[in-house]
């Protein structure tokens, strides 16, 4: 066995960094990832599942209470017609964006380190979008009228109003959910086949066999599959940029000071990726420690994620500053007031929480020591999650509670139902997540294998992608890393 590399985070421009440590082979990688699904359910999983299932129960009780009683159980009232509901919606839908960034955009950019985290992040996307979809569905308190949003012929002989960004949102978020789910499932097919082939029980083999659809890893299947994966990545990339842009149109297209800004689409997209990466880190760091996956999710992976959090955090910080500049530069007194009120008004505490968490905390990642310490990474990631929730709260609530006419001003104070609904949505998210980690391949085995030396990309006669024509020697002239002699 070749000398084992312990630190793969060091930069050496002349060499491709090793992405899988620990001298793993295809055999050991398969075993490591599959055993998460195949071994006896650990006690820690049951405890975590019990807690999150309890929170999910709380979530649906709160939604039931809302539907039975009416929207008055929430703290919102005119002028603040939106508060926790839409804040939670934008927060959750934003979380999802990092998953698509990792799975699609980093794929197009040939960022091979994504293979270790993409399945995980895509799963996170699906569950975050499910949580997000709950809020617009129930935010009127009358979910039985939700079919008004869908262009179906109905007894009112009316059609939805397509000139409103709120309807664009319906199309954007539901398309996002469908395409992300397809991308996630298609990506999982080869790994589901691995689980099918390793299954011992009859039921297990049948269920994974059904899900694997008949995958045999054949050259012809891989040929179609790879093209579809590339096409889906190409489609998901503009989609993810459009989804949060459309979400930002809900605000930017209105006339309200603090909302009516052209910077919103790019600012929202950067913020979504920022918050989503923070959520990936929040979940991945503990799971990596519990499942002992340090060889697959290496220090280099965490460091790369920290760098993206730093970069997107700076973009968000720039957007915060630019909003203030534009408010001043526009000369519009309402716009100026809206921003001074954000920083110094009654919700200043929320604004400064947002600034501390989103702009100041990630600055730690300038330091290599901070990027290499899982605990620091996790703490900053949690702070960024908090900050990104407050960002949406600040945008929505400060703008609504202090609009044009001082006589209509009012404060928004959340009720216990608001707070428990928010807490409960995390329960739904975590429940789905725990089920995913337990029953589905949460790390993309086939993709991780394809970036390992055993995949035969960086040895022999130095062939690269697509350079296999002519005579191919099938005798090895030398051994390579991780291969048994």
């Amino acid at each position: 066995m070749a000398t084992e590399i312990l630190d793969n985070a060091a930069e050496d421009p002349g060499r491709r960094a090793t992405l899988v440590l620990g001298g793993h082979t295809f055999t050991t990688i398969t075993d490591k990832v599959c055993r998460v699904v195949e071994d006896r359910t650990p006690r820690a999983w049951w405890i975590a599942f019990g807690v999150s299932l309890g929170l999910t129960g709380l979530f649906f009780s709160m939604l039931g209470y809302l539907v039975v009683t009416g929207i008055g159980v929430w703290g919102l009232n005119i002028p603040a017609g939106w508060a926790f509901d839409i804040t939670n919606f934008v927060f959750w839908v934003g979380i999802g964006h990092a998953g698509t960034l990792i799975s699609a955009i980093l794929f197009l950019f040939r960022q091979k380190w994504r293979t270790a985290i993409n399945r995980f992040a895509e799963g996170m996307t699906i569950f975050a979008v499910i949580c997000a979809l709950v809020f617009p569905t129930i935010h009127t308190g009358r979910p039985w009228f939700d079919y008004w949003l869908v262009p179906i012929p109905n007894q009112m002989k009316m059609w939805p109003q397509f000139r409103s960004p709120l309807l664009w949102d319906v199309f954007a978020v539901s398309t996002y959910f469908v395409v992300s789910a397809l991308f996630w499932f298609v990506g999982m097919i080869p790994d589901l086949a691995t689980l099918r082939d390793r299954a011992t029980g009859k039921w297990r083999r049948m269920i994974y066999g059904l899900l694997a659809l008949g995958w045999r890893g054949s050259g012809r299947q891989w040929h179609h599959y790879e093209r579809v994966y590339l096409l889906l990545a190409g489609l998901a990339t503009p989609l993810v940029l459009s989804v949060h842009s459309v979400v930002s149109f809900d605000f930017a297209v209105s006339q309200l000071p603090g909302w009516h800004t052209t910077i919103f689409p790019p600012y929202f997209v950067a913020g979504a990726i920022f918050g989503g990466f923070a959520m990936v880190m929040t979940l991945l760091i503990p799971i990596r420690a519990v499942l002992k996956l340090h060889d697959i999710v290496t220090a280099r992976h965490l460091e790369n994620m920290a760098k993206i959090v730093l970069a997107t955090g700076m973009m968000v910080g720039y957007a915060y500053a630019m909003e203030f500049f534009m408010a001043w530069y526009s000369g519009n007194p309402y716009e100026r007031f809206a921003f001074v009120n954000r920083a110094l008004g009654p919700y200043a505490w929320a604004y400064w929480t947002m600034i501390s968490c989103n702009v100041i905390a990630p600055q730690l990642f300038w330091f290599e020591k901070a990027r290499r310490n899982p605990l620091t990474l996790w703490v900053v990631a949690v702070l960024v999650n908090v900050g990104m929730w407050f960002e949406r709260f600040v945008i929505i609530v400060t703008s609504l509670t202090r609009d044009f006419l001082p006589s209509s001003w009012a404060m928004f104070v959340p009720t216990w139902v608001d707070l428990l609904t928010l807490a409960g949505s995390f329960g739904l998210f975590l429940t789905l997540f725990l089920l995913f980690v337990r029953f589905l391949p949460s790390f993309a085995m086939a993709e991780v294998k394809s970036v390992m030396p055993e995949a035969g990309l960086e040895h022999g006669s130095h062939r690269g992608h697509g350079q296999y024509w002519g005579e191919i020697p099938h005798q090895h002239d030398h051994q390579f890393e991780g291969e048994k002699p």
Partner: protein
Amino acid sequence: MKLPWKLPLVPELPEPGSLWGLLAEFDDVDAVLAAAQKVRDAGFERWDVHAPIPIHGLDEAMGIRPTWIPVGVLVGGVAGAAAGLGLQWATNALDYPFLISGKPFFGLPVAIPVTFELTILLAALGAVGGLFVACGWPQLHHPLLANEHFARASADRYFISVEAADSHFDPTRTTWLLENAGARRVEEVRA
């Protein structure tokens, strides 16, 4: 057992116990690639390479023609764009025109977001639908899946399967070809 009807999800069930083909096992990527070229050059049509990873260069080594799936994606995308524009025009300008905030009944700029989303949605469905059609999914069973060694094709081994239905197939000569191409084991697969 011969079923009196044809199952929808199991295409062309072969006669149980009949010879389906040969399965050759290889140690690594290089060996299977070199062997694939030999099988291709021997003129076989109904054969395949099985690997746990997509092998770069396999398409050339096997002589696979480019997939038609991108055409399905294009068709889906164009249909989505047409549906998006048509839907918004038909509902808001034709069937139920009403004035709101002085906006025109139908305008291209406001129609873009929904049109864009439907374009992506139908193109993605076209891609995945195309994959299902191209691969014949969902497929509930296949003779290879009953082979005990084949289970490692999704983990850490490489295989070449040659179907008995191929016109060039001859049990002895094809076994010899595969063994000569560097297979560590060649075995018969029965349906």
